[in-house]
């Protein structure tokens, strides 16, 4: 036998080709191409002594333990069994070419000379994933248990979701301990649904969508998990978690109610025991932007600017106070207030309160005093006081056309400042009164 080096293509000739081949010869050329390829062979030249049944000289092609043909004669001659332009294909990566010659090449007593043959072979991709009816009939296992993927020179296997390819590269085993769903909507189901789910599952289906979205779950029919009439879910169970809270453990044939998880992260844990033939479960999950509760004023002086019928993630509202009131966050006075709807559906700041502005104790007036026009001791917005000078020794300085009483009235403004209508914040002044003795000199004697 002659073993050709493994190549993707090449030529095979008869001995001495193109000179006449020798007599009494039997050689077998072994053509091998890389694994994952088949061998395709075509004869370009063929000149072998013709005979009935190719008994004398012949070329025999075999592959895969089968003979693909026995050929003799010439390409364009009806004598013998020439291969013509026929392409020969192996199933595997090996093809054998056996060349047999007898003791002589004579025709009607004349010695004939035959050149032999020139064949061209090439490696052709083997589609390992193609159906192999013969193999099935022969009881052979398919190459891949679930999915087969062919490529030039080879193939690989993969498994359906929830299954993991095993080390043999072909078989699949249930593996659902870390299934992740990140699309804003989709379907999640137990393995093989609606066919019975496999035993001994420890599945974790995690739904993780963008912050600010909330996940809704809607279970579909059929819903079927092994159950017991007296004990709650002793065999198999589906647990649902969101925000670290258990939303329920489900089994039986009654599908769970639609669930609004109020979370963007939901985990479904599905445990099964070693037996059972329930069909499992399937749910459709959808998402919507999370909503915050409608802001509510804590007092009648708070004004929520431009209130909206609904507030969702990243929406915000601003708060102001009625005139004369001050925004307060705890004990802290605020110049403005804005709250933003957070991804968890809460407001990032608590609603403030509006506290009435307080002007504080009125400034004391040198050589004068004040009294409350409004409620005594109350110094809040709209409170009024009247400053007066210590008469008759002092007199209030007033502008022309103004009276002391006008000049002395101060009102607590919305800005929390005592202000006079004419002079604003400027304090009144008490000036000494000259030349007005209380007890002037008099003389009764005349």
């Amino acid at each position: 036998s002659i073993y050709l080096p493994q190549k993707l293509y090449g030529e095979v000739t008869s001995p001495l080709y193109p000179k006449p081949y020798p007599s009494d010869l039997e050689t077998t050329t072994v053509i091998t191409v890389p694994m994952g390829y088949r061998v395709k062979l075509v004869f370009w030249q063929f000149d072998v002594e013709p005979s009935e049944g190719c008994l004398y000289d012949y070329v025999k092609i075999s592959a895969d333990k089968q003979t693909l043909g026995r050929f003799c004669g010439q390409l364009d001659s009806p004598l013998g069994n020439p291969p013509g332009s026929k392409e020969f294909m192996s199933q595997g990566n090996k093809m054998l070419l056996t060349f047999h010659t007898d003791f002589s090449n004579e025709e009607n007593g004349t010695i004939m000379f035959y050149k032999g043959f020139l064949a061209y072979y090439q490696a052709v991709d083997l589609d390992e994933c193609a159906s192999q009816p013969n193999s099935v009939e022969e009881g052979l296992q398919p190459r891949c248990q679930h999915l087969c993927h062919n490529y030039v020179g080879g193939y690989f296997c993969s498994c359906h979701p929830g299954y993991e390819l095993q080390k043999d590269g072909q078989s699949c085993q249930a593996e659902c301990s870390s299934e992740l769903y990140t699309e804003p909507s989709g379907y999640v189901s137990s393995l093989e649904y609606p066919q019975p789910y496999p035993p001994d599952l420890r599945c974790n289906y995690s739904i993780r969508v963008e912050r600010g979205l909330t996940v809704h779950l809607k279970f579909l029919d059929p819903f079927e998990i092994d159950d017991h009439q007296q004990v709650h879910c002793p065999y198999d169970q589906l647990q649902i978690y969101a925000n670290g809270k258990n939303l329920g453990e489900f089994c039986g044939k009654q599908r769970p109610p639609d669930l609004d998880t109020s979370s963007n992260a939901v985990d479904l844990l599905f445990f099964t025991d070693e037996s059972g033939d329930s069909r499992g479960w399937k749910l459709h999950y959808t998402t919507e932007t999370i909503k915050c509760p409608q802001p509510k004023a804590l007092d009648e002086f708070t004004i929520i600017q431009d209130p909206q019928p609904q507030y969702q993630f990243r929406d915000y509202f601003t708060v102001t106070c009625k005139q004369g009131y001050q925004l307060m966050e705890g004990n802290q006075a605020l110049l403005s207030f804005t709250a933003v709807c957070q991804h968890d559906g809460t407001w990032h700041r608590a609603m403030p309160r509006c506290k009435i502005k307080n002007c504080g104790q009125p400034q004391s007036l040198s050589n004068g005093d004040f009294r409350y026009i409004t409620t005594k001791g109350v110094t809040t917005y709209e409170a009024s006081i009247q400053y007066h000078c210590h008469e008759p020794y002092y007199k209030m300085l007033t502008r022309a056309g103004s009276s002391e009483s006008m000049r002395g009235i101060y009102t607590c403004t919305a800005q929390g400042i005592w202000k006079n209508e004419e002079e604003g914040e400027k304090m009144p002044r008490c000036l000494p009164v000259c030349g007005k003795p209380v007890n002037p000199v008099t003389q009764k004697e005349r």
Partner: protein
Amino acid sequence: IIGGQPARPGNFPWQAFTTIYGPGGGALLGDRWILTAAHTIYPKYPNKGKNTNPRTLVFLGHTNMEQIQKLGHHPVRRVIIHPDYRQEEPDNFEGDIALLELENSVTLGPELLPICLPDNETFYGQGLMGYVSGFGTTGNRIPFHLRFVRLPVADREACQRWLWTKKDTSPFSQNMFCSGDPAVQQDACQGDSGGVFAVRDRNRDIWVATGIVSWGIGCGEGYGFYTKVLNYVDWIKKEMGDEN
């Protein structure tokens, strides 16, 4: 005060008692200024006194000499002498006016009130009666109480003639006026200097300081001479500032 009588509390609430080189008087303006005579601060004969650098003490608010001192003196922040005053000319009392600014404002009350300043010449008409008060001598003794005397504004020419008869060469300028009557022994005297000649403006029912006790020849023997405040009102107001 010669020929006067004791004042009652509240009669002259502007009256100040000063001791610098000797006793003197003054009048309260506003609530932190004292109007007085320059010569009480810079006397014409400074070497006569023993104390060459005396403290300027100002007392207010009482008619009794002992009581007024018990009330405590009012510290002086600033002394302002009129620029026309000539200490070095013993017989010249031109510009005999000064202001003392107190450190703190005083609280006004029945016995402590300011006097007003004049605003026209009618306060200097001949015969217009005014009151002069002070803790000065009554002639031969120092009083324990504030005293006052009621005097008329005198005729300028009569006063000038009287000065000539006394062979006195002291200038009697337009910035002075005189009061009294040689026939009546009523006058201000030593210790009353700086006090004011107060006139009642009946129209406005206010008392006005028209003069400052300045100088005289003897006491109660003729006329007394006063600084004419009206001529210094602008200066006073300028020194006191707008806020006063």
